[in-house]
């Protein structure tokens, strides 16, 4: 395999992070597990949110994990892509909304 920063096999090693910090690792995985349980939001809805966020934070591990998770839950490709667009819209909106600052600054400095 070519040298790259990302190896798909590393995803399976995620639990190993606890080996170098057992207490914090355990707290994180407890929290993580709890977050994705059925709640006011269904586990299915949370899976779609996770998939959208995975794209926004550009995490290949998370995209891999939550595409698989979505398939397992019977989530369709159309639903997955809509979630990605929702994430992308917020991400691009966050960039664009700063345009307001640019415009204010531009107007303030301009005659």
């Amino acid at each position, binding site marked *: 395999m070519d040298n790259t920063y990302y190896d798909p096999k590393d995803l*399976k090693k995620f639990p190993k992070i606890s080996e170098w910090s057992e207490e914090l690792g355990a707290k994180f995985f407890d929290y993580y597990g709890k977050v994705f349980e059925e709640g006011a939001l269904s586990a*299915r809805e949370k899976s779609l949110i996770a998939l959208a966020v995975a794209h926004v934070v550009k995490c290949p591990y998370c995209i891999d994990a939550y595409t698989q998770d979505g*398939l397992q839950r*019977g989530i369709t490709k159309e639903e997955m892509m809509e979630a990605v667009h929702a994430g992308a819209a917020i991400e691009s909106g966050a960039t664009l909304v700063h345009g307001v600052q640019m415009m204010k600054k531009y107007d303030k400095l301009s005659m």
Partner: protein
Amino acid sequence: MSTQSLHKRKNKLSETENQLEILSHGIFANGELPTFKQKIAETNQFPLRPKKLEILQINVGYMCNQVCSHCHVDAGPDRKEIMTKETMLQCIDVIKTTGAHTLDLTGGAPEMNPNFRWFVEEASKAGVKDFIVRSNLTIIEANKKYHDLPEFFKKHNVHVVSSMPHWTKGKTDKQRGEGVFNKSIEALKKLNNVGYGMPGSDLKLDLVYNPAGAFLPTNQASMEKDFKKALMDDFGIQFHNLFAITNLPISRFLEYLIASDNYEDYMYSLVEAFNPSAVSNVMCTNTISVSWDGWLYDCDFNQMLELKVASKVKHISEYNEAVLNDRDIIISQHCYGCTAGSGSSCQGSVA
């Protein structure tokens, strides 16, 4: 998606020794992954032994009107193996004497066996508690001579268990063939119309969900909820239970795994998801599988791998429950499929 069976295509996976070679000497050969035998030995569950026989599963033939991409039977219109009336009579003799409460007819499409209706009538007289026919649904729509199957099932109080990989057309047709979804929906409506699947109805209609790809099924209960909502909202269809079944890496699903470069990852997923508490409830512990030609197997998957029971009694004609129950169940790496996650059997999750 091929429209022919592995056998018809003379694919090397149609030879069971080639499948067993890949299963046993593929990714397990370097010792990186434990064999199934090692894995169950760790929890003192080896050798796997049968419990009381509860289910007699009879495969009445490999002929089918569909050629599903995940089919572990390698069934299809080009398969001609069909159980004869003589073997059926031997099965009925056994049904009368065995303590098994469930008779489970499978195939192929069991309805395509020309003696199917006669067999159902004769077997139902034997007083089985739960008489299952595993119907692929589309057979009801396939030909005029099958259109009255819902009424026939109702007359004999047959428990209908039907395949349905998803509540959307795209996913269903991809796994089972073009047009399967629409025909399945029509068949489900006809079953509902005669009373099958309705709340409180004795006419049991259950669906079977196999994942359409190289991933494991999720929680059966939540999948059932989603299926029920979607089928009701979109088509007004009702059913009783959903059985989530893991695809086992044999036959056409093995072909798909290898061709799509998913074989290794899938086997890793199965091993990682190994659930020791599922072992004691796997279906081979309470089921005997009978092939179209009367041979006995620990399960339908062992039947397809031609791994006959490790017993003096190997054929329905010489059936002896006491002798048969004193045996070790034959296992191989495909057994990881039945012990992954919540476990998998023809009746769904086991853990």
